[in-house]
């Protein structure tokens, strides 16, 4: 349970280093790192939607010409600056997305009332899914939904109190996440101090 909190807090501390990023190469590195973090927590990385995001954002930004002219396509001027701007924004979004996956992957008991309500909500989702799947006659549709809804109210909703058996030492996760935080901030600060890796 605690490990999840550490990941959550680490993520919050990392957040600014991503969306304040101004360098295209380093945001790409941050994105890679975030994706690796997410994968380490067993989250999937799908190439296609991210690629679509990258291409569409870059293309949209080409409509506002900026920088070195690379080539002309009809009446449009394809400029390098616009391309980089769009790509940078896309990588920022991708980084935020996978960082978010990482932050949320730890098993965190949400504090207070809202936490227990959300647990209840998620419990119900499980019930809805299993009940709906087991319904034989899904037509007529609304009658089927009614059946589902009525059945949900019959049963008692029992909260499962999962007791955390072993309190594994937290030093490990804390140190690892400190490393993550440092890496992201180094990636942010390096270009600020002029250590840019030139593409051209």
């Amino acid at each position: 349970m605690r490990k999840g909190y550490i990941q959550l807090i680490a993520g919050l501390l990392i957040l600014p280093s991503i969306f304040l990023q101004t360098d295209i190469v380093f945001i790409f590195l941050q994105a890679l790192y975030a994706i690796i973090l997410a994968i380490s927590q067993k989250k999937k990385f799908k190439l296609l939607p991210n690629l679509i995001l990258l291409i569409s954002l870059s293309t949209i930004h080409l409509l506002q010409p900026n920088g070195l002219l690379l080539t002309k396509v009809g009446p449009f001027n394809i400029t390098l600056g616009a391309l980089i701007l769009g790509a940078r924004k896309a990588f920022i979004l991708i980084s935020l997305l996978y960082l978010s996956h990482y932050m949320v992957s730890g098993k965190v008991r949400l504090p207070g009332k809202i936490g227990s309500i959300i647990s209840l909500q998620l419990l119900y989702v499980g019930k809805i899914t299993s009940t709906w799947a087991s319904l034989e006659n899904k037509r007529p549709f609304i009658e089927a939904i009614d059946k589902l809804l009525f059945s949900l109210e019959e049963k008692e909703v029992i909260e499962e109190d999962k007791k955390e058996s072993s309190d594994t030492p937290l030093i490990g996760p804390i140190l690892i996440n400190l490393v993550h935080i440092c890496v992201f901030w180094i990636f942010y600060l390096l270009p600020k101090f002029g250590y840019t890796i030139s593409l051209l």
Partner: protein
Amino acid sequence: MTLHSERDKRVEFVALLAAFALFLSTVEYMIPKPIPFMRIGLANLPLIIALPLLSKKEYWLLALLKVLGQGLVTGTLFSYIGLFSLVGTVASALVMRVLFFSFKNSITFLGVSIGGAMASNIAQLELARLFLFGSSVKFIAPPFLVAGLITSVVLGLFANKFKERSLWYKEKLL
């Protein structure tokens, strides 16, 4: 440790509706979409039909649970997707409440749904203009809004039908 006070029962009811929203968004997620940004908004259905069922506080709790639930389950809560979801849902819920309670008998879930979808889409487009695309967002606006209109009409009509036919719903209205 199950206290069945009236208040607890209401909270359970809201959680149930929120769970439905989550369920519907999972269903929508599995439907293949040509463009990633086009959302059908199935998850808004509970927010529509809950308008006459919940108090103001309960309704906003529902909206919050919808956003948090979706964000946590998909892991997008702290990303741009989570922000868009929050902005869209809040705008939509606000407009839907205003429409529903201002026009009472002259409006059905259809108008409410359309209004909510338009509010949500416009709010999200504005967010996209500020943080993503700048003025170039005007190129995405038309198809986005058209898709939103079409899906909200279908959703609203379904909500009307549901109100007509569902025994469960009729029971809740009492």
